[in-house]
């Protein structure tokens, strides 16, 4: 996906090393998906 986006001119894109599994393994914070669910269908430019 990152390569596809780069080909489309979005150069500031980086995949997270190890993905979600690595993030949770390190004990970093996660939030309930309900918060993310509300963002479904929302424009991608919505501020995080």
């Amino acid at each position: 996906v990152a390569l596809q986006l780069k080909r489309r001119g979005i150069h500031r894109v980086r995949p997270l090393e190890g993905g979600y599994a690595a993030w949770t393994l390190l004990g970093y914070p996660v939030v309930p998906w309900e918060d993310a669910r509300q963002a479904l269908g929302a424009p991608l430019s919505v501020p995080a």
Partner: protein
Amino acid sequence: VNDSIDFLRENGTTIVFFAVLFEQMGLPIPCTPWLLAAGALAHSGRPSLLAVVGLGALGAALGHLGWFFAGRRWGYGVLRFLCRISIEPDTCVQRTQGTFDRFGGGALVAAPFIPGLTTIAPPLAGLSGMPLWRYLALDALGDLLWASTFVGLGYAFGDQVTWALRVALRYGSSVLGVALGLFGLWMLFKLLQRARVRRKLHVDRIRPAELKEMLGRPSPPLVLDLRHRRELVEDPHTLPGALQVSPSELPSRHKEIPRDRELILFCS
């Protein structure tokens, strides 16, 4: 050679059953040559054509069943494990989920014909909550079609397959050497291909610690969660501020992505 052929005639069904069982469990044991050989030998009535097809399909079904229950019990952990040991872990989870979503239960029928998918489709069916009876029916149909196809090909081209079998038995070590050499070349090609993709992305990967630090900044990056919706249902958590987007729709929505913010992608 004749003794070996006689041995195969006597034990063809047993060999086919175990070769198929072990291969479909995920072990790197090629079973297709055994199906072809048994089909070719069945021309003379020994082993029985129906027995070879039946035991081949049964071996495949039993080989898959454990993965189905593993998927049901451990969910995406099994899929991640299988994809981690696969030759293409970067695309494995998304691709198999995409195939399963596109074809539904039909993916189970087609799975035995598609290398890779045959081991991953059963746990995917298990974790998706497919009823056991439906899984068994679809998987059995796929296994029966698959076994019939290869045994049937062996039967149809009996003379040619028997000739190849005699050559393989006579020059066994040389043929094995060539086969292993070709397999090694294929593995090397896939590893080089993977290394090339990784090299392209290498400088662009972000470490979790760096992302955690960036998320605390006044202008954090835009984080996109590319995991499958089904996976999010199993573990309904995500990174702070992440938006959930399907990987397939992302390229078509690239114009919506703000160019002034860095984009971080993650999946399972």
